[in-house]
């Protein structure tokens, strides 16, 4: 049987392997060194690779991204950690106006093999400034690639691909999944960016779900299967590039679509998926597209409110029932 490791370990293994493989790879972030990172993701790497490869910084996110992107521009392969995705607000210019655009503005003169790792998501009562899912800002920023894995297997393979990628990648982990286990082979593997994974096959309804919501969708699918409704769970894994073909193929089969993500509904990634599908698979659609997302509020602190605001398994079940008519 294949060994099981957590998403946290998957990230760490990917980082370790790429640090070993390529001297140009280095990590940069706040307390990722001796401390091991606030989420303990980088634990042990400082001891193994030393402070020149695992670089602790002051609490200066704009300086972190700038340092990483400047080093990338001259051929290094930095992996920057932003402690929580919520903090991209203080370095959004460096991400969106600098990293994302530098290659284009210079007519292709620069290549930026830069990875920004950052955890997102709610579930820990960390309230409005530590619980967000901000991938929608990033997919709306041409020049970035955006990855949002769900399983340990995907996490490891995609992070290795991201680090080897010659474009700036924002790699969004989910804090609630750090302890989630799954099978991961011992040997080296890389998962190409831009390929969706069908996490469950089904003929009745296509459910596109990202990050932690993949697990919720799988749970919903299991319950619905008992009623004879078969969901097909499509995990895009990378939002940019998006595996549109996989989504469209699934919808062509099922004729029904539910999109699930944890970010607020308004202007979220789900809108993009809905817009693509209604444009490119209009004739296949048998029912209105449903979105299951967080409500359009900041994240509340109270666990009960947080649960109410964010999508739950029963919300997915309800949405699937709605599209089944």
């Amino acid at each position, binding site marked *: 049987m294949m060994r099981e490791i957590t998403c946290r370990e998957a990230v760490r293994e990917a980082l370790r392997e790429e640090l070993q493989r390529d001297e140009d790879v280095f990590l940069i972030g*706040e*307390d990722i060194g*001796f*401390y091991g990172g*606030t989420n303990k993701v980088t634990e042990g790497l400082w001891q193994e690779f030393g402070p020149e490869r695992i670089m*602790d*910084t*002051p*609490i*200066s996110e*704009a300086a972190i991204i700038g340092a990483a992107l400047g080093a990338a521009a001259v051929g290094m392969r930095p992996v920057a950690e932003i402690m929580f995705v*919520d*903090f991209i*607000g*203080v370095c959004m210019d460096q991400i969106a106006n600098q990293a994302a655009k530098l290659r284009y503005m210079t007519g292709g003169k620069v290549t930026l093999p830069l990875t920004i790792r950052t955890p997102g998501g709610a579930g*820990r*009562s*960390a*309230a*409005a*400034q*530590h619980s967000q899912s901000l991938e929608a800002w990033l997919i709306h920023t041409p020049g970035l690639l955006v990855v949002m894995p769900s399983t340990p297997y995907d996490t490891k393979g995609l992070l290795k691909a991201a680090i080897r990628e010659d474009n700036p990648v924002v790699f969004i982990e989910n804090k609630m999944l750090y302890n989630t286990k799954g099978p991961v082979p011992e040997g080296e593997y890389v998962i190409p960016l831009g390929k969706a994974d069908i996490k469950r096959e089904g003929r009745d309804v296509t459910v596109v779900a990202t990050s932690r919501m993949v697990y919720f969708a799988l749970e919903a699918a299991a319950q619905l299967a008992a009623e004879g409704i078969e969901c097909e769970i499509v995990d895009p894994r990378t939002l940019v590039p998006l595996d549109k073909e996989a989504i469209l193929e699934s919808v062509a089969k099922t004729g029904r679509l539910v999109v699930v993500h944890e970010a607020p509904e*308004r202007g979220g990634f789900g809108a993009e998926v809905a817009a693509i599908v209604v444009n490119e698979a209009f004739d296949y659609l048998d029912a209105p597209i449903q979105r299951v997302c967080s*409500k*359009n*509020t*900041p994240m*509340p*602190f*109270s*666990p*009960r*409110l947080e649960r*109410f*605001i964010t999508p739950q398994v029963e919300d997915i079940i309800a949405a699937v029932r709605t599209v089944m008519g």
Partner: protein
Amino acid sequence: MTKEELVLLHKTMLQIRHFEHEVAKAFLAGRIPGFLHSSVGQEAVAVGVCSALREDDYVVSTHRGHGHVLAKGADLKAMMAEIYGKVTGCCKGKGGSMHIADFDRGIVGANGIVGGGIPIANGVALAAKKRKNGQVVACFFGDGASNQGTFHEALNLASIWDLPVVFVAENNMYGMGTSQRRHQKVENIADRAAAYKIPGAVVDGNDVLAVREATLAACDRARRGEGPTLLECKTYRHYGHFVGDPGLYREPGELEAWMERDPLILFRRYLEKQGVPAAALDELEAQVIEEVREAVDFAHRSDEPAEETALEDVYAPTEAGRRAIW
């Protein structure tokens, strides 16, 4: 100061100390959601600063803000309930530990973003300046925050506009696990005042009276319209960065040395020297403990907020605000 006033300082420090301990206990017992940054060890900064403020002055706080807001007069019960995530909390359970606010008492708010509050303090001070009401804003932030861009932008703006702000750099020697030595080369954060041509001062942050004196001077200056001061208070946190952090990054003996300079021990010694009887102080402490227990009890017994309330308070209830939630 009268003896009563001195004892009141001590009482407030005790409140913070016991509040933080109870909160930590409840957190470790799983009764408090989220995570917690404890200010134990830093009480003299909060109390020294806030005791120098007028009631209608403001404080802008941080993620490690329980002390600041308690010292500014936040209601123990409402605050405890907030940290418990209850509907009786001062923010109805929506903010939690990192987002305590109480405008009626001049508490503009804690902040989950390091350095996030500093520019906001300027705005409150700007309003005070426009209204010429003599109000001052005390803006707390950590040593780590002094490396954020917002620190720089805000101090510069306050400087050129002579805003009535006391920038209180609460230097507890660490930003998370990174010692000040590793995150900046200056010995004193206050050395940075020169970059804005404003006065900078360093005080022993474990000496409540020293903090108070320095703050009074800065407030006077601010109220005279002469602008901001950067006041650095050197102190130390007894817990780790958050409750549960074992603090492995500390130097050997460091915590112990600071424990000997515990602000509560120091000030109690001072009070006793001033002739306050030990028994009175013991009784005071017992009283505070009881008060905090009541707050815990209140919080514990309070209800969680009802689900629908999650949709309230996103917007002020204007016509547009009501429709914006869709």
